[in-house]
């Protein structure tokens, strides 16, 4: 694969190696700016780079000598060279947990890893994408950060804005999980609940951007989306670096809009193109909840078009009924020999409990979706248990406590006799 490389933009915007925006559909190029859709075909715009000319050994050393967060990959991201010196939550370099207990439970023999992004500053992978969007917002002179969100992003934007000195105003469906609402509100920005689904919120924000009411606002996942999306590449970079600069054989990624999965694929391909990892086949699997599984449906039906649905699932962070990157997810799953699968709400809860009791990782519902789908893919023979497999947990279970309502095993009086009578004693 050839990494996109173009002449530097004529603009004075300093976003490091980012040189231009390129339409993923038709290839049309645009100067760097707060734009997200192609003026010719509405296709999504992506960052095109002038990537480092270092040899692979020098680049690998430069990365390994960098800070212990996503900024170690600054030479591959749309951020200025001095990004690590700016106020940021410095997300990334989260744990890649070798999940031997879960592997035994699922019958995986080739090595099973959980990339646990609940360890980020606001406990989800969204801190990665927002950190990149903040740099774009700085470059374009925005003073207010905003987003449409299913919860995790709202918290990440609120926190990053507070740290970086931006105002913030974020928009969420009014009926999100309490934990996510509290996290979105605590950082001091404005939080607006919208009566509707995430897709309604997204539509509203898209209209706000074209209106004077939203002028000067940087919506991290709308008008800053091309930059924001690049943050997900750091998941791919970290997984490979943590595996000893090696591609995983298989990776299971949750699907909301599908952006994360497409950017992980982009990141893996860049590492190959730069000579940082050996080129070898890898499979990418997508994971959805049955109550919002338009991409899984299209995959199973052999369609290239994703028909939108009205979401109804406990996995609210994945409840995007109209996933804009869905067609690309289908392409990637098919190209790499992966698949897209879905699991029911009870299966999600079972999987959350499975991950917690085997590895001590408490995942939010999206993590339950990826673990549940992994189990299902193994059972159906689509995922090979003899290969190295990485499963993503993108957020913290503390944000979705209601999904796994649980209490004490038993409640007793504070006496040894009562403990003995409860039947839990060793003898």
């Amino acid at each position, binding site marked *: 694969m050839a990494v996109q490389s173009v002449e530097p933009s004529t603009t004075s915007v300093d976003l490091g190696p980012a040189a231009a925006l390129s339409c993923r559909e038709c290839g049309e190029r645009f100067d760097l700016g707060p734009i997200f859709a192609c003026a010719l075909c509405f296709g999504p715009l992506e960052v095109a780079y002038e990537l480092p000319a270092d040899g692979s050994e020098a680049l690998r050393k430069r990365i390994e000598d960098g800070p212990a967060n996503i900024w170690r990959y600054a030479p591959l991201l749309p951020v200025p060279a001095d990004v690590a010196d700016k106020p940021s939550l410095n997300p990334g370099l989260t744990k890649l947990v070798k999940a031997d207990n879960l592997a035994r439970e699922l019958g995986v023999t080739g090595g099973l890893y959980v990339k646990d992004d609940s360890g980020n500053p606001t406990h989800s992978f969204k801190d990665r994408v927002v950190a990149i969007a903040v740099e774009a917002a700085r470059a374009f002179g925005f003073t207010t950060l905003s987003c449409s969100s299913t919860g995790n992003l709202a918290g990440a934007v609120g926190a990053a804005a507070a740290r970086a000195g931006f105002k913030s105003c974020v928009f969420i469906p009014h009926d999100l999980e309490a934990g996510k609402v509290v996290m979105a509100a605590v950082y001091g920005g404005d939080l607006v609940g919208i009566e509707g689904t995430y897709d309604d919120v997204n539509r509203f924000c898209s209209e706000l*951007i074209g209106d004077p009411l939203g002028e000067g606002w940087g919506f991290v996942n709308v008008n800053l989306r091309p930059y924001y999306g690049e943050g997900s590449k750091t998941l791919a970079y970290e997984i490979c670096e943590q595996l000893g600069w090696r591609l995983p054989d298989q990776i299971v990624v949750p699907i909301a809009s599908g952006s994360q999965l497409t950017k992980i694929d982009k990141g893996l391909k860049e590492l190959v193109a730069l000579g940082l990892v050996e080129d070898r086949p890898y499979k990418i699997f997508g994971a959805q909840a049955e109550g919002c599984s338009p991409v899984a449906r299209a995959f199973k039906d052999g369609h290239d078009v994703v028909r939108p649905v009205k979401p109804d699932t406990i996995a609210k962070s994945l409840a995007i009924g109209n996933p804009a990157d869905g067609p690309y997810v289908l392409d990637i799953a098919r190209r790499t020999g992966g698949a897209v699968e879905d699991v029911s709400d009870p299966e999600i809860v079972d999987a959350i409990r499975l991950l917690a009791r085997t590895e001590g990782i408490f995942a939010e519902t999206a993590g339950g979706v990826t673990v549940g789908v992994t189990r299902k893919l193994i059972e159906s023979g689509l995922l090979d248990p003899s290969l190295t497999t990485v499963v993503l947990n993108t957020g913290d279970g503390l944000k979705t406590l209601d999904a796994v309502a649980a209490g004490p095993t038993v409640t007793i009086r504070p006496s040894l006799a009562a403990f003995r009578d409860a039947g839990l004693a060793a003898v």
Partner: protein
Amino acid sequence: MSVTVRIPTILRTYTGGKAEVSAEGATLADVLRSLEENHAGIAARVLDDAGKLRRFVNVYVNDDDVRFEQGLQTPTPDGSAVSVIPAVAGG
């Protein structure tokens, strides 16, 4: 039937910078033809070569995504508000 059409920023070069314009038509297809008559070039941005809605454009008639309705044949009653919006990814 007279409707209002909300125009996204990237199409406003065809409407002289206007964010909202009027159009006529009983269905979305008719409305797009009416738009094209008054703002030449706009239809080719919204529709692909086969005359279908491009896959990265969302169109709403009032609050309903036309893909949940009848696509280009979705009725546009008098006074409807039609919104054309680029699809948003990134969650």
